[in-house]
């Protein structure tokens, strides 16, 4: 049980993600979480504004159920399956984040400097979350997939478009982490 409660190493987690994908494939489905954002648009009536959202979203309800399960899984994991150990970040990462003004990096899953309500209810904090979410939603649909659909499912299928998309993910991610984050979080 102690092994379950401690953070899981990559060589356990990675294969378990493969297992999730294989189960969904066995059910005759695909693995891709960002499609749910499109489905939610369609349910909300986005078909009135763009043909892109006119499709049989009911055929994608199963994926919304997966996401609902993922929310429950997140709850169960922190409530019953965690020992509260901090994230074992590399020393360099902790140092770099402290320079950017982050207190106690790795002590929680997410930094309070970005996600606490004190920050989020300010103009800058709110803008950060809205811009970040918008870029994720816009980019993932433009590219036709996200980390699950392209990086895991697409690459597992040896899809060239997915390889290009993952290169794109890293171009964007590296620019943000190395050049833009230091501008946002200057002390």
């Amino acid at each position: 049980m102690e092994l379950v409660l401690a953070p899981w190493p990559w060589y356990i987690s990675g294969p378990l993600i493969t297992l999730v994908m294989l189960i969904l494939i066995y059910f005759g489905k695909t693995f891709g979480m960002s499609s749910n954002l499109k489905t939610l648009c369609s349910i909300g009536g986005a078909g009135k504004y763009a043909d892109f959202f006119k499709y049989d979203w009911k055929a994608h309800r199963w994926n919304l159920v997966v996401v609902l399960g993922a929310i429950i899984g997140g709850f169960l994991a922190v409530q019953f399956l965690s020992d509260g150990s901090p994230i074992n970040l590399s020393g360099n990462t902790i140092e770099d984040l402290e320079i950017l003004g982050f207190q106690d990096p790795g002590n929680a899953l997410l930094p309070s400097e970005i996600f606490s309500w004190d920050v989020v209810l300010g103009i800058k904090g709110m803008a950060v979350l809205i811009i970040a979410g918008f870029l994720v939603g816009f980019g993932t649909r433009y590219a036709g997939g996200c980390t699950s659909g392209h990086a895991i499912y697409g690459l597992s299928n040896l899809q060239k478009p997915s390889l290009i998309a993952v290169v794109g993910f890293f171009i964007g991610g590296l620019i943000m982490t190395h050049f833009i984050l230091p501008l946002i979080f200057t002390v």
Partner: protein
Amino acid sequence: MKFLKYLLVGIFFGIVLVKSEAVSWYRIYEMFKFQSFHMYGIIGSSVSLGVLFIWLIKKLGVKSIKGEKIKTVPKEKGLTRNLLGGAIFGLGWALAGTCPGPMFVLVGTGVFSMLIVIAAAILGTFIYGVLKNKLPH
């Protein structure tokens, strides 16, 4: 009841994402700083095994639960859409520290400010759908 199996898969997926720390903003930052093998290990082992098993599934002609031969869905081609769309996604991924799976999982862990990220992501998806025909793909 046909949805129950998807709910269970989702619960398992959510637990794995939390226990692997892949939902952590810090782990994404660390990954883009190349300061730890952790995220590369997760994605690398997951993809390697995925390649192996999908190859085996096709080779052996494994059938799905519905008795149909398992087929994989090809991704849409296009250098611009994949590279530019991917880069836009990457900017958001590194800023929010979360992608479209983990953002929901994190709501379950009690980070309710993540609902703002989700709402913005739905808006981003909507704006893409509206602009789709005007964008280069």
